[in-house]
């Protein structure tokens, strides 16, 4: 079974993602902070990581992405962010993200995106 790690500090957003990807029938793990996302990813070795960029704590989304892309080369990372400037997108790509979704996002679009990675 494919594993998807959902990292966002807002409970509602995690729930929204969970509902959106329900149809895939994948195992879904949730993280509330960057650090937690990093640790859970290393622990569970998921196929896809949905990662909020602005998260509280020591590590923000970009740092987590960078670290995990080194540790888990096969991991697909989809960045979720409320910041949609060109500069932010470039930062994401530099951090090694595979895709980028700007909030608010369409759950159907997210589903299609994740499908293409699993």
């Amino acid at each position, binding site marked *: 079974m494919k594993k998807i790690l959902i990292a966002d*500090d*807002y*409970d*509602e*957003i995690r*729930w*929204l993602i969970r*509902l*959106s990807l329900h149809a895939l029938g994948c195992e879904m793990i949730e993280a*509330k902070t960057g650090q937690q996302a990093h640790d859970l990813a290393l622990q569970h070795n998921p196929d896809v990581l949905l990662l909020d960029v*602005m998260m*509280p704590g020591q590590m923000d989304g970009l740092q987590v992405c960078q670290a995990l892309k080194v540790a888990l080369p096969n991991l697909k990372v989809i960045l979720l962010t*409320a*910041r949609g400037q060109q500069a932010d997108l470039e930062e994401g790509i530099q951090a090694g993200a595979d895709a980028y979704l*700007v*909030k*608010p*996002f*369409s*759950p*159907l679009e997210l589903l299609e995106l994740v499908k293409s990675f699993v």
Partner: protein
Amino acid sequence: MKPVLRPTTRLRQRLPIGALMALLLIFALTLVGFFVVSRNLEPVFDFTSTQATGFAYAEFQRQIAVVQLVVAEGQSAQSIQNELDILHSKAEIIRNETYYQKIPAENRGLLESAVQSSLALSLQDLQNNNAKGQLEKILLGAQDGFRNVVFTIGEERENLRKNLLTLEYALIALVSLLGVSMAIAVLQFSRTLRLELKRSDELQAAQEHLLALTTNLRVSEAAAEHQRDLALNVMNTMGQGLTITNADGRFEFVNPAYAKLVGETAQALIGRSPLEFAFPEELSKLEQVRLEREAGTTTTYATVLKRTDGLPCDVLITGVPRLVQGQQVGSVAVITDLTQTKAAEKRLFERTTQLLSVISVSPDGVLICSPEGSILEYNAAFLDLTNLQTQNLENASETMVDQWLLTRCDPKAPYVFGVDAQEEQLDLIRLKFPTLRILRRYMRLMRDENQQVIGKVMYFRDITHESEVDRLKTEFLSTAAHELRTPMASIYGFSELIATRDFDSGTTKNMAKTVYRQAGRLVGILNDLLDLTRIEARAGKDFKIVPQDLANLIEITAEAFVPLAESERFVMDLPTSLPSISLDADKFQQALGNVISNAFKYSPNGGVVELGVVFKAERCGIWVRDQGIGLTPEQLARVFERFYRADTSGTIVGTGLGLALVKEIVELHGGRVEIDSVFGVGTTVTLWFLTRAV
């Protein structure tokens, strides 16, 4: 007038007369020589004469023979007589012949006796018998005479030849002498002539030079005259006064400008003394400069002229002594009217004072440097903005100011040296030490009317606040967008799921509730934002600040903002009597309401929420204390930032704008917000207001 020169006069004078005379003499002697020679040659070449002589003697001898013959033959007396007559004539010829006389007397005896015997011979003699012997003797005498004649002629010829030779040598000598003399004369003459010609050329050149000089002199004279006219014209039209005094110190010349200065006509001043136009208190000074001028010194001094109308006129006088062979014969003076200058100086002084006053009170820093980089002027604002002290700038240079600023500059923001500024330059200086300060420096070169650089002005404006506001605005917009996107993500996402997918009714309802809650949050953010921007934009101008019953106002607010379900943990302890203070009631409620809401929101685990009032000096503090999660010092430092949320779990609903709004409202009332907090223990927020109206 072109002078007439006679070079020939001088030539004649220079010809050697002695030589000429000698030449002429030699020439004459030569002529004489020629004459003598020709005379002597005459007999040499006179063959006719010698031939005739020879012929005569031959005829004489032949006739003697003829006579002998006829006698011997015994011819008739007539024939003998005829022949005898012929003999007589021949003897006569001999006697008259040229050479007959020349024969020396001792040798002539035989010939003379023969001639005389012939002449004396008569027919009877011949008819005598002894005639034969006589004729023999005559023939012998004739023969001897002929011999002597020939000899004499030969001798004569020899003498002539000798004379001729002598003459010839003499002639040759004369001719040679003549030739040499002529040659010398010709050489001498040609040399003299050449010298004379050269001299003539020189004279010609001299003449031309003289002519040119004369012409130049005329041109110079014309130029001098022109300059004199010009000088006179200048003197008469110049703005400065000009006077020329004689040895007695009286005016010889004054120009109209001077006359006008003293209020007279130029003509009326001639012969008068400059001292007439001096105030008595100036006389000693004038006497001193007069003495200096007498010593040959040019003097420049300021004095006051007394005009004919009695009014004073400030002037500057430069007096130059007129010297003739070291003797002072008067002075030339130039008089400058200082009245205008003094007025201009006064205006300039006033203007400078005004400018300096403006600079000194300016909130912007001003620094003025000389073209060499030394500091000419600065104001207090400059010291303030750069943290420089007056003593730092004593004898300091522009470079030193640059160094000072460089060492205090934010290393990340490159500092542009002011000393290198070109015509005009504008740059930002980010000072980090002692505190962040952003200065906008504008530099410009100052130039005089000839475009020469006379200094540099630097103008410093503190734009720290402006840039900070700019930065906050940008950050605010970015944060606001982010804060709006988060609830929008829930609304958009859940509503799309509801619309496109089927869920069980419980999930659907939960999703709808979430959408509703997030929409509410969005509205809250928008309201807070609008409130905040409105309050900010109006800056309190729309506040209705009127005296309020404080106790009543606090009670109403508490009632509205304390959650009904939690009212049991709210404790309000107000003094029995509270003064009325001037406030905008609505805004006060909004501010205090926010603080009360926060106290409940951030103490999710319960605990008492207290409200009280304190007084300090002329201020009144309304405080709200909770026993909630509290704030770390880092959180506390950022608590008034817009959209800053101490809680990031998302469990506590909030916009992050509340405290910013509170602060804005309180400060527009002239008050202050104070927050004390201990992480994990609780927070106290005090709103301080002034008890008297602002």
